[in-house]
C-alpha cells in the first residue's frame, strides 16, 4: 500500500489538520459565543452583527482565502482568519437563539429573588443556553474540520494538501486518503463535542452525576492528549531555533518535483532544515507576494511569467525574455535573485488529437485557424485572463472556435479524453501530451513567449546562507525539456511520488 509507505507524510498532515482546526475552533467558539451574548443584550447592534456574520458565511470560502492574501499573505494566519470568520455564523446564531429562548418566567424568578444581572447570566441564561451553544459548536466543528481541507491551497498545510497533491498529480489514492482522513476526523470531533451536549450543563450547574463528570473530564483530557501529540509531532517551536529555509511550489506535478529537487539538494548538501510549502493555490499570484513578505524563500518561476505577470514588462519582438534583464529588474525591484536557468522551456502550446491532426492535415496553429469552427476549445481559468493568453491568441491567429470551455487546469486532458472539447492549451512539458496521443501544433506566428524555468530566491536568504548559491547553481542547465517531461510522466502516469522522482534525479546529478 503506497499510502502506508507515506505514513510520515500523512501523520504530519493529520497533526497539522488537528492543530489548525482545533485552533480555529477555539477562537471561533470564544469570539462567536461572546458576539452571541453581546447581540443578545444589545438590541441596537443585533441586526447589524447578525447580518454581518450571515454575509461572511455566504462568501465562498475559496474566495475568502484569496481576498485575504493581499492583507495578511498566505499561510496559517490567513487560514485561521478565514476559518474563524466562516465559523462565526452558527456560533453567534446558536448562542443568541439559546439565550433568547430561555423561559421568561425563570428569568423573572431569579430577578425577583434578587439575583444581579451577572448572577442571572451565570446561573440562568448561560447554563440554559448551553445545549443550544453546544449544538452550534457541533455544526461549527464539522464545518471547520472540512474547511481546513482548503487551507492547503494557501500553504497552511493539513490533510487538504494530500487532496490537492492528488488532484495536481492525478493520484486518486492520495485524493481518497486525504478526503477520508478529513471525514473521519470530522466525525470524531463531532462525537467529541457531542459528549458535552447534555453533560456540560450539569457540570456547570454543579449537579452532574459522577459518571457525567468523569465523561467530561476524560473528553477534555483526550483532546489535550491529541493536541499535545500533534504539537509534539510537528514541533512548531523547533523551526525558530534552527536554521531553516522555506521552499515553495505552484500546484502542478512539475512544480512538486522541482520543489522536491531543490529541497532534497539543500538537505543533502547543507545543514539547513527545509520547510516545504508545496502546491500553493494561485501560483505566482500568491507565491510572489509571500516571498516579498519573507514567508517563503524560494521557488521555481518561468521567465515569461516573471517578465509579464510580475514585472508587467512588454515582451521584445522575438518573445524571448533576456535572463540578464530579468535578473537585474528582480534584484532592483524586489531584492529577489534569479539563480540562472534550469534548462527547459515550459511554454504554452495548443494541442489536438493526433487523429484529428492527420485528418485535417494540420501541424501549426495557422492550420488550426483554417478549421477552427470545427473545434471546441478548453483551457484553464487562468488562460482566459492572462495577457499572453486567450485574447491575444485569437487576435493573432483569428480563431473562431465552435465553443470555449473554462475549467480547472488539471481537468483539460480528461475533458479531451471524454470528448467534451477537442482542442486545449497544453504546457510543452506535459507528460500527458505523449501519453494521450496528442499533437502539439507549432506556434508558427511566434505568439507564446518563452517560459524558461529558473530558481527565484530571496537575496536576504542567499546573504545569510551563501552556500546555497553553489548548491542550487548545480541545477543550472541540468533539466532539459525531455527530462522534465519524463519526470512529469513518472509522477502523473506511473504514479510515483515526486519525492522519489526527485531523489532519482539528484542521484544522477
Amino acid at each position, binding site marked *: 500500500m503506497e499510502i502506508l509507505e507515506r505514513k510520515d507524510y500523512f501523520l504530519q498532515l493529520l497533526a497539522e489538520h488537528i492543530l489548525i482546526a482545533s485552533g480555529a475552533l477555539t477562537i471561533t467558539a470564544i469570539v462567536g459565543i461572546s458576539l452571541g451574548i453581546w447581540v443578545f443584550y444589545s438590541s441596537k447592534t443585533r441586526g447589524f452583527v447578525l447580518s454581518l456574520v450571515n454575509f461572511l458565511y455566504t462568501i465562498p470560502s475559496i474566495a475568502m482565502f484569496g481576498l485575504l492574501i493581499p492583507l495578511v499573505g498566505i499561510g496559517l494566519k490567513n487560514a485561521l482568519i478565514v476559518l474563524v470568520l466562516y465559523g462565526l455564523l452558527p456560533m453567534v446564531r446558536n448562542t443568541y437563539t439559546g439565550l433568547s429562548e430561555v423561559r421568561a418566567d425563570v428569568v*423573572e*424568578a431569579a430577578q*425577583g*429573588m*434578587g*439575583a444581579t444581572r451577572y448572577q442571572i447570566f451565570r446561573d440562568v441564561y448561560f447554563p*440554559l443556553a448551553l445545549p443550544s451553544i453546544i449544538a452550534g459548536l457541533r455544526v461549527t466543528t464539522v464545518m471547520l474540520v472540512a474547511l481546513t481541507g482548503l487551507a492547503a491551497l494557501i500553504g497552511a498545510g493539513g490533510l487538504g494538501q494530500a487532496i490537492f497533491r492528488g488532484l495536481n498529480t492525478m493520484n486518486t489514492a492520495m485524493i481518497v486518503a486525504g478526503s477520508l482522513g478529513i471525514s473521519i476526523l470530522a466525525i470524531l470531533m463531532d462525537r467529541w463535542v457531542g459528549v458535552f451536549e447534555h453533560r456540560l*450543563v450539569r457540570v456547570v450547574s*454543579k*449537579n452532574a452525576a459522577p459518571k457525567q463528570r468523569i465523561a467530561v473530564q476524560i473528553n477534555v483530557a483526550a483532546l489535550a492528549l491529541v493536541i499535545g501529540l500533534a504539537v509534539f509531532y510537528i514541533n512548531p517551536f523547533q523551526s525558530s531555533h534552527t536554521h531553516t529555509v522555506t521552499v515553495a511550489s505552484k500546484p502542478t506535478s512539475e512544480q512538486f518535483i522541482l520543489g522536491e529537487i531543490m529541497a532534497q539538494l539543500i538537505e543533502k548538501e547543507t545543514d539547513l532544515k527545509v520547510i516545504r510549502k508545496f502546491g500553493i493555490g494561485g501560483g505566482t499570484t500568491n507565491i510572489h507576494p509571500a516571498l516579498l513578505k519573507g514567508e517563503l524563500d524560494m521557488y521555481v518561476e518561468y521567465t515569461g511569467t516573471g517578465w509579464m505577470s510580475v514585472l508587467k514588462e512588454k515582451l521584445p519582438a522575438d518573445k524571448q525574455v533576456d535572463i540578464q534583464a530579468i535578473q537585474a529588474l528582480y534584484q532592483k525591484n524586489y531584492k529577489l535573485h534569479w539563480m540562472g536557468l534550469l534548462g527547459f522551456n515550459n511554454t504554452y502550446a495548443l494541442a489536438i488529437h493526433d487523429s484529428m491532426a492527420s485528418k485535417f492535415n494540420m501541424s501549426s496553429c495557422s492550420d488550426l485557424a483554417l478549421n477552427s469552427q470545427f473545434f471546441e476549445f478548453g483551457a484553464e481559468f487562468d488562460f482566459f485572463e492572462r495577457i499572453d493568453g486567450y485574447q491575444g491568441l485569437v487576435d493573432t491567429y483569428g480563431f473562431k472556435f465552435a465553443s470555449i470551455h473554462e475549467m480547472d487546469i488539471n481537468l483539460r486532458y480528461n475533458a479531451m479524453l471524454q470528448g467534451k472539447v477537442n482542442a486545449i492549451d497544453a504546457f510543452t512539458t506535459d507528460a500527458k501530451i505523449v501519453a494521450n496521443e496528442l499533437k502539439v501544433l507549432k506556434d508558427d506566428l511566434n505568439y507564446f513567449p518563452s517560459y524558461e524555468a529558473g530558481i527565484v530566491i530571496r537575496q536576504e536568504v542567499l546573504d545569510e546562507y551563501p552556500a546555497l548559491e553553489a548548491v542550487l547553481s548545480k541545477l543550472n542547465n541540468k533539466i532539459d525539456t525531455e527530462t522534465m517531461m519524463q519526470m512529469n510522466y513518472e509522477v502523473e502516469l506511473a504514479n510515483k511520488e515526486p519525492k522519489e522522482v526527485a531523489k532519482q534525479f539528484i542521484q544522477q546529478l
Partner: protein
Amino acid sequence: MSMPQSNIIELSELNFAYEDKKVLSNLSFTVAKGEFICLTGKSGCGKSTLLRLMNGLLKHQQGKVEILDKEIQQWEIHELRRKMGYVLQDGALFPHLTVYQNMCYCMKLNSFDEASCKKRIDELLPLVNLDAELLSKFPDELSGGQRQRVGIVRAIAHNPEMVLMDEPFSALDAETRISLQSLVKAIHKKLNTTFIMVTHSNDEAKKLASRIIYMSQGQIETIH
C-alpha cells in the same frame, strides 16, 4: 416589643402606564407587617402590575413606593429583593438545577453557607410535605403540586420580610390547589411573615387573606 401597626409597604398616589395604556391610577394603600394580603380582580385590572411595582420589576411613573421604611429608589434593588420571597405560577423553578439547589437559591444569594442551607431545608421539608428523596431530582421529574411546594420553600427558606406570590396555584388541579392553600395558610401562621398574593379567585382570597383588596380598572374598588 413589636408594633403590630408598623407598615412595611406604603403606596401613595401611584400611577403606572405601559406606553400610553394607563394601568394604575392614583392608587394608595399600606401593608402592615404580618398581614396576608390578597390582590384580586378581573384580568387586566392591574393586580400583577401592582405586585411587580413592589419588588421593582416595574418602575412607577408617579407617586411613591415605600418599602421597609425607605423609598424604593433609595434601595439597592437586589438588596431589597433579597429580603423578599417571590413565587410565580407553576413554580418557575430553574430547570437545570436540582430540587435542593432550587430551594437553596435565595439562601445562596443571601450568602448562607452550605451547612445552614442543608439544615434549613431539612426543617422546611415536613412543613411542605415533601420527601427528602426528591431533593436530588430535577423539576421536570415532579408533579405540578410538588413543583409549587419547591417554589414555596425557595421563597421562604431565607426568612424573608415578605413573600410576593403571583397566581401561584392557578395552574393546579382543584384538589392540589386546596391542599396547597391550606399549606400556605399554615406557613403564614407559623412564620408570621407578610404575604402578598395575586389571585383571580375570590374563594381563594377569602380563604387565605387577612385583608382582600379588590381592584378594578387600575384602582382599588374595596378593601375588606
